């Protein structure tokens, strides 16, 4: 049943995305803007791959925030989540399906962001696959844990304040680790302990989010 629901959710969201572009296109636009700003913020000739880790993750964070909010809002509005709950769908399964769907959409967002970063920051081609691995690990974590603070905040009357605060608590240690793992790749140190920590974050934070999801999504 899990696979069937996940597949249906991904299919539905990708179909919507091809018609609206609201989760991916807005995010891609923002992430590319951030990369460009960083690329032009440094003096001519000074732009190097050593700056790339910061630019890359700021771009991903900004773009992800937009995608996360839209992804949650699609289900929250017009009684859609309520309808899905009324069918008897396990809320944990719904959360997992939605996270998988979000990750599928994020792949469309992460790829151009990574390529733009590699281009403007002159990242050696040999380091791009390693960096892609770190970005994927980060994407998994953001897709699994990211919706939780948005769902939590969306039920509150002060969601505009609450959601960024909750996101901050979850994202900051995660992002610092992602930046460190990316920097290690760019410095030629390979998949370092920071990369392992990022993978562990995915497991722990993602698992916790899945466990907490029923309490957040039910009344």
């Amino acid at each position, binding site marked *: *049943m899990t696979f069937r629901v996940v597949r249906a959710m991904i299919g539905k969201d990708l179909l919507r995305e091809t018609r609206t572009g609201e989760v991916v296109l807005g995010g891609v636009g923002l992430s590319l803007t951030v990369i460009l700003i960083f690329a032009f913020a440094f003096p001519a000739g000074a732009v190097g791959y050593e700056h790339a880790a910061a630019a890359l993750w700021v771009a991903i964070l900004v773009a992800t925030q937009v995608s996360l909010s839209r992804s949650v809002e699609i289900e929250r509005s017009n*009684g859609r989540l309520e309808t899905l709950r*009324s069918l008897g769908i396990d809320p944990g399964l719904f959360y997992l399906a939605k996270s998988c769907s979000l990750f599928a959409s994020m792949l469309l967002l992460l790829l151009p962001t990574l390529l733009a970063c590699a281009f403007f920051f002159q990242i050696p081609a040999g380091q791009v696959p390693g960096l892609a691995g770190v970005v994927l690990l980060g994407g998994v974590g953001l897709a699994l844990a990211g919706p939780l603070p948005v769902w939590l905040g969306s039920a509150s009357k002060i969601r505009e304040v609450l959601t960024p605060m909750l996101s901050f608590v979850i994202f900051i240690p995660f992002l610092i680790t992602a930046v460190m793992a990316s920097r290690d790749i760019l410095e030629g140190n390979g998949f370092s302990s920071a990369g392992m920590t990022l993978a562990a974050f995915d497991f722990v934070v993602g698992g916790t989010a899945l466990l907490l999801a029923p309490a957040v999504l039910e009344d």
Partner: protein
Amino acid sequence: MPPLLQIDNVERRFGDRTGVRLDHLELEEGETVLLRGPNGSGKTTLLRLAAGLLRPTAGTVRVLGKDPAREPEVRREIGYLGHELGLYSELTARENLEFYSRVKPRGKGEKPPGPEKIERILDRVELSEAAGIRVEAFSRGMKERLALARVMLFDSSLILLDEPTTGLDQAGIEILISYLKGRAAAGAAALVSTHDGMFQETIEAGVVRLEE
């Protein structure tokens, strides 16, 4: 067999405000009950409690002897149509039904509603010709019909409808009545909130009145 729906001494509060209070309501097989009352009397809240979407502050709600808020698997037996219709505007009518038929949990060996059933239901709510059109282009009445089609897709034992006649024309109301009668004959029970006096006169049903 326990009643399809049993509500006892139920109360739901939202902060200081009482959303709904009801001493007793029981629905047996084949029974249809209309929920009436002024705005704010708690009709929607009661339906959401019955569907397990809200937990009561006090009292008990049981569907086939189970608490639908704590045992979500019993919601498989419920066909719920809320005030918000839960449709995806960017999908077509057919795609909406296909999506919901795929994600609805099933019992062991239970088959999902296939394409033939989806087409049959679309035909029954007179949306066959609009099946390939995105819902964002639908009128309120067409959306209401499609949401009703989603309920009709599954042979639910307990049907909970919140103001289902809103936006429906006479033909749509007749489809609704025919559906409710058919399900009642098959042993299902229905709880339907309505302000529609004509609808009440047409359908043979008990009435529960909620006070403000």
